[in-house]
């Protein structure tokens, strides 16, 4: 089975030892993997599936913070020495992932300097992503932000087709459903996507990149720079 880009970055011997402590699981769309405030039971290295992390408020709709696919890991903050989950994590794209129990993962971090190094670099990417998304949420229009999220999803879905409900897109961007209807309609009119009842098809990836705000490219740049 194909692995995950973070694991692929490890020396083969260390990677094999870590994979030996993992099991493969099938992530199912909509499953909540962990709730904020509870201790981590497992970490997940997505392969084909992907996961979204969500910040919740008492009286408002939640807000998507980021997507984790085969470029990342759910549970990186365990490397900070804190066992609790910072944000709720929900499966956003079905597919395979490697999973390891939190205990063996912490042991692996102690035993493998290479794993710890990769995880720290990934945490830097996470900080940069959080920083970028904060600015993006604050200042950019709905349509370029939607284009950005569709690109982030496209990168992790490994397919031109994926499923995103209207409600999910609204939470992703922190806007009303009507805002999504307008922005998605606009992207459709430009023939960049097709969007029918939650099924999205990317028709013109380059066009989507051109419509997106600066934040998509900045994210790619940060990742490439740190993992160069």
């Amino acid at each position, binding site marked *: 089975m194909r692995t995950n880009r973070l694991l692929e970055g490890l020396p083969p011997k260390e990677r094999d030892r870590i994979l030996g402590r993992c099991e493969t699981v099938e992530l199912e769309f909509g499953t909540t993997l962990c709730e904020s405030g509870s201790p981590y039971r497992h970490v997940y290295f997505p392969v084909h599936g992907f996961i979204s992390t969500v*910040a*919740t*408020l*008492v009286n*408002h*709709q*939640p*807000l998507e*913070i980021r997507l984790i696919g085969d470029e990342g890991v759910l549970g990186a*903050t365990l*490397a*900070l*020495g*804190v066992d609790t989950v*910072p*944000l709720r994590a929900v499966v956003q794209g079905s597919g395979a992932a490697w999973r390891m129990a939190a205990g063996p993962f912490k042991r692996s971090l102690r035993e493998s300097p290479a794993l710890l*190094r990769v995880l*720290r*670099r990934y*945490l*830097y990417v*996470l*900080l*940069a992503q*959080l*920083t*970028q*998304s*904060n*600015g993006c*949420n*604050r*200042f950019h229009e709905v349509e370029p932000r939607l284009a950005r999220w569709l690109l982030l999803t496209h990168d992790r879905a490994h397919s031109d087709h994926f499923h995103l409900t209207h409600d999910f897109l609204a939470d992703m961007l*922190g806007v009303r459903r009507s805002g999504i209807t307008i922005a998605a309609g606009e992207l459709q009119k430009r023939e960049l996507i097709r969007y029918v009842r939650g099924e999205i098809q990317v028709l013109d990836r380059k066009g989507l990149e051109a419509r997106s705000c*600066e934040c998509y490219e900045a994210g790619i740049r*940060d990742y490439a*720079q*740190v993992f160069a």
Partner: protein
Amino acid sequence: MSLSETPSPRQNHLLAALNPDVQARLFPHLERVDLPLGKVLYESGDAMRHVYFPADSIVSLLYVMESGASAEISVVGNEGLIGVALFMGGESTPSRAIVQSSGSAYRLLGQRLKDEFNRHGDLLLLMLRYTQSLITQMAQTAVCNRHHSVDQQLCRWLLLSLDRLRDNKLTMTQELIANMLGVRREGVTDAAGKLQKQGAIEYSRGHITVLDRPKLEKLSCECYAVVKKETDRLLPYLPHKAMPTSVS
């Protein structure tokens, strides 16, 4: 600052919490610097030569867009340090660091900090936990920016600042507050005017005095309490301060 305090690296709670042997190694290399209001310590993308441990100053980390617009993603005072990206292998910082409340800080060459990390001792452990508290603050700020009113955000921001000050007075220009909150200056004027009318603060020519802290807590969104509670949990070295009434 109105209250005098003997200048010492121990004014920074993270430094104060280190083991004596770590302190003995690090403290001789710390340099006390004055941080005037509005000074930029780093632009985003800059290489980080030094890390800064605030003593009685407060530094804001801002995200800066290509258009020049900016908004605060987290605030750092005597509970932490500026430069966590260094131990993650990122040589540059993703945000702008700007002094939000003048005062002093202790700075240390980045290389010294890395040498200390590599000993895998106390400092690394504390910085890791501190990083987690920063991540919490950033995620909460994201959702707060999106869904809460400027009035609520101003309350949250004042309370976070207050926790890092020794008294209840803050010197700030309206423009700086507007850059923190990512809103127009008029938005800040309106919000501050309302708080003043309700007797929560006194505001004149860049000087803010907090008169009624419980009222600010009541008017703030939940985000202040969430961040405060998580920071206190993650950083047990912080001196005990009264918890906001809403989370006790």
